[in-house]
């Protein structure tokens, strides 16, 4: 049985409860064991790096250090957290920077690997397992990755930044058709959502229009910041799912609680995905 270290980040226990809960349900279903990083802290999100470089490295570095005691790879659901943690990891890989970090946090025994949560499911064996649960539906969705999983280069792993594929592969495995569309990794402006919503609305509208144009009935993301932003700043109701929620539907373990948390009620579409017309 596979064991992983899990870093939920602040949102998965609060604003993105449905992402957290569906992730745990799916992991349980697949028999994957997870442990949260002991006593983890907030990675600093967009704010630490905006105001102070050192802070933006030390906060996620503390999480890496706490995780290193568990000796498993770290999987991170949120794109923002993943991005910050990867940058801290890259800093730790540089001897001089590592010294500086260790001055503040003490010695690191080891540095675990860091992956986005979706990478867990693109593993060949798991993809095969997923394909045992097949959805029968003509609903089509657009997979959306946003920025922080694929940019900058130093955080990119196994993905084409212009045409990423992981979420598509996962959804296709459970029989959900995804459309190929050009804005998969276009920025939704999430970090600006509260500070300047006028800018963000323009970006979100563009994304949703393109997804619709490509023939999608919904967008599926892997990032709580993107998901919240796409729901908050859209004009006409267009459902935005987490990919783990779709997996939950396919496995028959979805939970009414998830749908109630959405700002845009997806329940009509959920029943269509389940096979209704």
């Amino acid at each position, binding site marked *: 049985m596979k064991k992983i270290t899990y870093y939920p980040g*602040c949102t998965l*226990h*609060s*604003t993105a*409860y449905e992402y957290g809960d569906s992730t745990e349900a799916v992991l349980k279903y697949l028999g994957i064991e997870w442990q949260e990083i002991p*006593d*983890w*802290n*907030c990675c*600093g*999100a*967009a*704010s*630490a*790096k*905006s*105001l*102070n*470089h*050192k*802070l933006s490295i*030390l*906060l996620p570095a*503390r999480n890496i250090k706490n995780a290193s005691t568990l000796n498993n790879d770290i999987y991170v659901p949120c794109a923002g957290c993943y991005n910050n943690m990867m940058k801290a990891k890259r800093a730790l890989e540089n001897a001089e920077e590592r010294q500086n970090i260790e001055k*503040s*946090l003490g010695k690191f025994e080891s540095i675990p690997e860091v992956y986005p949560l979706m990478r867990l499911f693109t593993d060949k064996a798991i993809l095969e397992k997923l394909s045992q649960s097949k959805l029968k539906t003509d609903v089509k969705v657009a997979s959306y990755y946003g*920025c922080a999983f*694929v*940019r*900058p*280069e130093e955080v990119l792993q196994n993905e084409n*930044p212009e045409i990423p594929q992981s979420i598509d592969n996962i959804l296709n495995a459970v029989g959900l058709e995804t459309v190929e569309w050009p804005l998969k*990794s*276009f*920025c939704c*402006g*999430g*970090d*600006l959502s*509260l*500070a*300047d*919503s006028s*800018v963000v609305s323009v*970006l979100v509208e563009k994304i949703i229009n393109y997804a619709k144009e490509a023939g999608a009935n919904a967008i599926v993301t892997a990032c709580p910041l993107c998901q919240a932003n796409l729901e*908050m700043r859209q004009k006409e109701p267009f459902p935005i799912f987490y990919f783990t929620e779709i997996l939950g539907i396919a496995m028959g373990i979805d939970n009414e609680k998830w749908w*109630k*948390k959405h*700002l845009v009620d997806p329940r009509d579409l959920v029943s269509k995905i389940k096979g209704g017309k």
Partner: protein
Amino acid sequence: MKISEINKHTGQDILLCYQCQKCTATCPVSNFMDIKPDVVVRMSINGKLDNLMRSRTIWVCTGCETCGSRCPNLISVGKINEFMRQLAYENKISPAVKPALDIHLAFLNSIKRFGIVHEASMLAEFKLRTKDFLSDLKLGLKMFLKGKIPIKPHTIKGINEIKRIFEEK
């Protein structure tokens, strides 16, 4: 500041820029910037950092890094903007987009207090800082009613270590 220092902080060589402006064409928010991404590079080369620190651009930049991933010379304007934001904050320059700074400060204060973010008190502080209580009011209420914003904050055990990190920075 010397160009070499900007290069060191941003991990790239801005002198390689040959003004193709692919960054500006690429940037999702360049329409909302007062100084376009390619000009940010030029101004960094010419030492016009003061203008940059006072610009809207550095606060509007979402840090999406699309510029960096498409630039033929691997120059990320986002990294320059990030560095300028840090410099502006350090030098207490009043930001062209004030709410952007307010939200970061509210956010960091929350981390400093609890080790993680507590949305309710963070948003309250943000609203106090901006003195704008009306915008997004309905949205906030909806999130609250959906139980997306927990009322009780949780504090991590290692909060003292977090406080120390904040003091050291």
